[in-house]
């Protein structure tokens, strides 16, 4: 390897720093900072030619996704500037600009990048000198840090395309007849999609569409017609059909299809097709979750996702034959700070349970995000990288058995990694709830109601798509809940036919998605439950978000349904015998 190499987490080595020309993306607000930069120009103030300015009306337009996105695409540094606090032309827009920068720094560090690559500086219209000085100093900082390690790899073109492509809430009505032809590669993707999902078997019964919770709320998305278009050879229409991004990948249609067409996988492959044709769609929350995962998918970075393990006196043992895979969704808290939910709780409580069952697992320190969301949004490249790195790192722990709490993560490791990496995972995969039911059967532990559970009323259990339809764990959670003596009631749609929480792979959070979430909460309420237990921390998050945003006004009753993580529910009620 030649040139500069630097591990952001560790020692910086600048072998021939002289050649390095930092590239910095600078976001400025229109009223103060952009004007400040103008002023620097008029005054002929000299500063390094390292910055490329992106003008926004207000620094409040900033989103952490922009910052991380710029880094992902190879920028060596990102600078954000706006009006000084109190001077904001939009009262306090710059406050959220500041929050975006803080979030971005936090996430960048979690992903293994040096937070110093991101810099915030308030610059007023008259502070041309300050602007020039800031650029000068920041350029020097970046010079010291060396090039962005990600910039060394060619950027995945589909990621660039995505950044330039249609955003969820800009989705326009699609005029099929105007779609151009698909490219040759696109046709190849489509052919494979047909073969591998058996879509050619479709006998047009329509059950998939009848059961699809998205179609019920957003009829433009029509699963059966996607298959039929493929069969009729309308490839271009498929590649340019933006409705595909509405699919939740929930798997209900697969459950319903009588001839075993794997429709969710078909849609997933259509997404790969769309990406390859430059028709990707940025995921919800500015695509930040996907960007974060992609940042972590580069071998140069050493992300650290173990912060959850530092609290709560958890016991680990590096020699154990059991390793715990957290699937920790760390980024969530940063992204959606107004939802009151501690995402660290789920992995922490899972390990608490394990400790109580007498298991001290290996802490999976080199864990990266599973890539689940990248997979289901059709980003095969980044997913492939995460799959092989995670699988290898997991084997390197020397453990024989991997215990999971996050159903998405378990599904990804157990079902997807072997297919994508082409080799068996090599470890037995179990869900912590399976260990609990085992221990219950052996009468090693019991579950007891908490003193304040008394009189709380019935509980319902939400089968998350991954836990139910993909892992097939329907009975275990129910058994555990009933073990406490709590009254378990079922929602109308349950088990294999349970509706989704409304967000799949963090792609869209649109009106259909919100309606679906609300409908689920209404179902819980109608079933007579005032607590809803779910095994998936994403579901928990989405339900809570629903409640704190629009749930309350529309149907006040659903607000009363308390959302509880399965792991937390169990950990609090488990007793050793």
């Amino acid at each position, binding site marked *: 390897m030649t040139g500069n190499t630097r591990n952001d987490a560790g020692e910086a080595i600048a072998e021939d720093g002289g050649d390095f020309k930092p590239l910095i993306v600078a976001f400025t607000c229109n009223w103060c900072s952009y004007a400040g930069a103008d002023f620097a120009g008029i005054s002929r103030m000299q500063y390094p030619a390292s910055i490329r300015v992106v003008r926004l009306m207000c620094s409040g337009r900033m989103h952490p996704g922009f910052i991380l996105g710029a880094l992902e695409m190879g920028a060596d540094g990102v600078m954000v500037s706006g009006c000084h606090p109190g001077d904001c032309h939009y009262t306090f827009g710059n406050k959220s600009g500041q929050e975006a920068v803080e979030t971005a720094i936090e996430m960048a560090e979690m992903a293994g990048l040096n937070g110093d690559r991101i810099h915030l500086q308030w610059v007023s219209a008259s502070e041309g000198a300050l602007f020039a000085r800031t650029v000068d100093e920041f350029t020097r900082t970046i010079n010291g840090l060396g090039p962005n390690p990600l910039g060394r790899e060619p950027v995945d073109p589909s990621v660039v395309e995505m950044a330039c492509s249609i955003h969820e809430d800009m989705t326009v009505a699609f005029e099929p007849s105007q779609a151009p032809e698909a490219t040759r590669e696109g046709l190849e993707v489509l052919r494979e999609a047909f073969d591998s999902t058996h879509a050619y*078997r479709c*006998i*047009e*019964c*329509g*059950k*998939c*569409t*009848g*059961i699809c919770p998205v*179609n*019920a709320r957003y*009829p433009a998305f*029509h699963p*059966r*017609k996607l298959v039929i278009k493929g069969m009729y050879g309308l490839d271009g229409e498929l590649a340019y059909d933006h409705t595909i991004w509405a699919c939740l990948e929930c798997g209900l249609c697969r459950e*319903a*299809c*009588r*001839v*075993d067409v794997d429709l969710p996988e078909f849609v997933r492959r259509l997404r790969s097709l769309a990406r390859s044709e430059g028709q990707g769609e940025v995921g919800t929350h500015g695509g930040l979750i996907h960007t974060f995962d992609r940042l972590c998918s580069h071998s140069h970075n050493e992300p650290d996702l173990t912060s959850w393990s530092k609290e709560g006196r958890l016991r680990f043992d590096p020699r154990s034959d059991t390793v715990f895979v957290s699937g920790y969704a760390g980024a969530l808290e940063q992204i959606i700070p107004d939802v009151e939910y501690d995402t660290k709780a789920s992995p922490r409580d899972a390990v608490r349970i394990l400790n109580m069952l007498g298991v001290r697992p290996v802490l999976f320190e080199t864990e990266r995000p599973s890539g689940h969301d990248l997979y289901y949004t059709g980003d095969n490249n980044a997913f492939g990288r995460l799959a092989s790195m995670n699988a290898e790192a997991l084997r390197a722990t020397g453990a024989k058995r991997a215990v999971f709490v996050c159903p998405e993560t378990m599904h990804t490791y157990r079902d997807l990694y072997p297919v994508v990496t082409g080799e068996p995972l090599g470890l037995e995969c179990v869900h912590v709830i399976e260990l609990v039911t085992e221990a219950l059967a052996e009468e090693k532990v019991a579950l007891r109601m908490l003193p304040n559970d008394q009189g709380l009323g019935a509980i319902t259990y939400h089968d998350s798509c991954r836990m139910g339809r993909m892992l097939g764990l329907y009975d275990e959670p129910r058994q555990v809940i009933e073990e406490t003596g709590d009254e378990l009631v079922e929602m*109308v749609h349950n*088990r*294999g*036919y349970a509706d989704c929480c409304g967000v799949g792979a963090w792609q869209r959070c649109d009106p259909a998605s919100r309606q679906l979430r609300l409908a689920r909460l209404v179902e819980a309420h109608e079933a007579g439950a005032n607590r809803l237990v779910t095994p998936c921390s994403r579901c928990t998050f989405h339900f809570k978000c629903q409640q704190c945003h629009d749930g309350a006004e529309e149907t006040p009753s659903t607000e009363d349904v308390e959302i509880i993580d399965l792991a937390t529910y169990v950990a609090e009620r488990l007793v050793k015998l």
Partner: protein
Amino acid sequence: MTEEENGTSEGEEGKAPTEEAPRIGVFVCDCGLNIAGSVDTQSVADYAGTLPDVVWAGRQKYTCSDPGQMLIEDMIEEHDLNRVVVASCSPRLHEPTFRGTVERAGMNKYQFEMANIREHCSWIHLYDKEGGTDKAKDLVRMAVAKVRLLEPQEETKVRVETTALVIGGGVAGIQAALDLADSGFKVHVVEKEPSIGGKMAQIDKTFPTMDCSICILAPKMSEAGNHPNITLHTYSEVQSIDGYIGNFTAKILHKARYVTTDCTSCGDCADACEQLAPNEFDIGLATRKAIYIPFAQAVPSQYIIDMNTCLGTEPIACGKCKDACEREAVDLEMNDEVVEIDVGTVIVATGVDVYDATAIPEYHYGEYPDVITTMEFERLVNAGGPTSGHLVRPSNMKTPKTVAFIQCVGSRSLKNGHPYCSNVCCMNTIKDSLLIREHYGRDLKIDVYYMDIRAFGKGFEDLYNRSKAEGVRFIRGIPASITEVPDNHDLRIVVEDTSLGRVLTRDYEMVVLSVGMEAAHDAEKVQHLLTLSRTSDGFFLEAHPKLKPVDAPTQGVFLCGCAEGPKDIKDSVTQASAAAARAGILMGAGEVTVEAITAVVDEDLCTSCGLCAKVCPYHAIEVDTKAKTPAHVIEAACAGCGTCAAECAFGAIHQRHFTDQQIEGQIDQATASKAEDLVLTFACNWCSYAGADFAGVSRMQMPPAARVIRTMCSGRISVDFVLRAFANGAPTVLVSGCHLTDCHYINANQQTLKRVEKLWKRFDKWGIRKERLALAWVSAAEGAKFQETITKMSEIAKTVTAKEIKETKDIIARNYKFKAEKMARARAKKAGADPGAANKAKAKAKNGT
């Protein structure tokens, strides 16, 4: 492959054993383009002309046509041919045809052989003309090698018992029994239920003519009950069937009914009985007593006690029925009994079961009271049914105002159901919709949810149009779910109307699931009783789908009705008459010739070790191991599997027409093939060879690697054959036969398994790669499995190097003595002194008395 390398010398056995020198004619068939399209038939014929003892070779467009057969006859005469090879289709199809041809020209028909260059070659290598042509040449060379050694044979005849056994008393079984009985044959009908009648007895009206089902069936039922030539065994089961065509022995279990034939079905007993159970005939929609008659028109018209519901056989426990019966027909001490009958032919008419819709969770059948099946619908609209013909919602016993039918429930589905179309349910629903119209007029709204309406039969489209004219709405799309509306039991359907591409949500008061048919649940039992085969969908496989549609692959056994596949009453009855006619032909003739393929003992070589007798599945070999008398084959009992011949270590027992020399001749020629991925394949006649044919008929493409040697049973394949193939340089060998429970010779393939396992063990010890010898159970329906196996084996063959082959040859030469060598030694010894002579004399003396 040279002879020295075989480790055996062709010596005397190799020579054609008949006096006359062989004069062979080879007839290569184009079969239009079926063969000529992917095999260069002219070059095959030219090549055949160069083979030893071939005096005439040529090609024809259609060998089986009259001119084709005439050419064979002419050439036999002109060139004085005494052996004929036809290279065309499968012997399973045309061997009888050509045997007839050569016989007409004065040849012995056993000196004829076929090379299957269509099913096993041209059809499965459509895109590899060169490979296909090379393979065809190999197949012809193998056939010529065998035909040179074929001997003339005389066939024997066996008597055919003129009694038939019909298993299953549905409309098909009844029809078959009546046809046979009217032709003067005795018939035994075994029905597992207390009454004959089958599904048709439960149906209200029948499409397309809307006759009352029981009104047209009941006369036939009572005719069968009263016919002097018919014996009904109801509430009975066939326990076992032994024997062979013309001479089967069946054991029939009569389950105790606890009511004797003195019963006049007055019903006094049932009035007295207080124990209730769901009525099976009405699918649980009504109840019956513990002592009951299944339905009014039941045949025999005789009550029966259901002991699970009865309070007990102890009269003290209850016995009310016994007291009530004036004819003293109730016998609570009755026992099961087994009767044995001898029959010449068997007709299988075991029908179908109705798909169990509880397996489809989204429709909540069995959970929501107003979701019913079409069978329940039949009972509800039937005047003799539980509601006297009133269609009511089970939830409130009121007539529904809206009814939805859902089609294809359990059919045309890979999940929760079966992949095939059940054939009758579209028409049945159309019929049901008209029945509703008849009873309730147009006020009752009817919607039918379907994917396709299959109205293919005579009069079917008319009925469909009538239903549409009557305002029945046909909506294209299958409901994704049914949910019950709380409080009133209404049923909410969510469905995509696929014509409009729009999801509809509609409420109905009743939903009828148009359930499909599935193979009878005990079909597997019947399958093993008669060593039949079933297709992947569970229905019985016919001997040939077009030309022998009602013959089972087992000779003397015939199929009819839904047991063979889902069909309506008309087709079931048509097939029943066909099966009766086929069975009648056999029984009318009174005897059948059996192929001259039975075993014979060479007393000179027999050491009286008794190995052959041990493996014979038919106990057809007598041998006294103590007295050292040579083995003796009871020809009438021998079925001709050849397992004994493969087992004998001294070559002392032969199977006629499938001798060691003949098969070894084929092996030697097959292994002389140029194909580097050669898979020398042994296939039994009934399953694997038929499976390979099926792959051909289905045009399943595979590499031209296989050279198939047909034996009647895989039990014929000896350790010698396999090792000879390897010693000759074959890279891979495949042994294939019927699945273990499906052997056509009881269980002869168990020996195959043992032999192959033994070989694998030796290979392990000797250091020969085990995967070069494969064992595959391929049924007649598993063309795809044959294709898969050959493809896989040819891949393995490609990995076998010349060096490896050489090593294998050396290993075998060092470690194994072939039978031929032992025989030669034994013969040489005998030429000196004859130690067998004394035993032979003894045996002769014994047989003489």
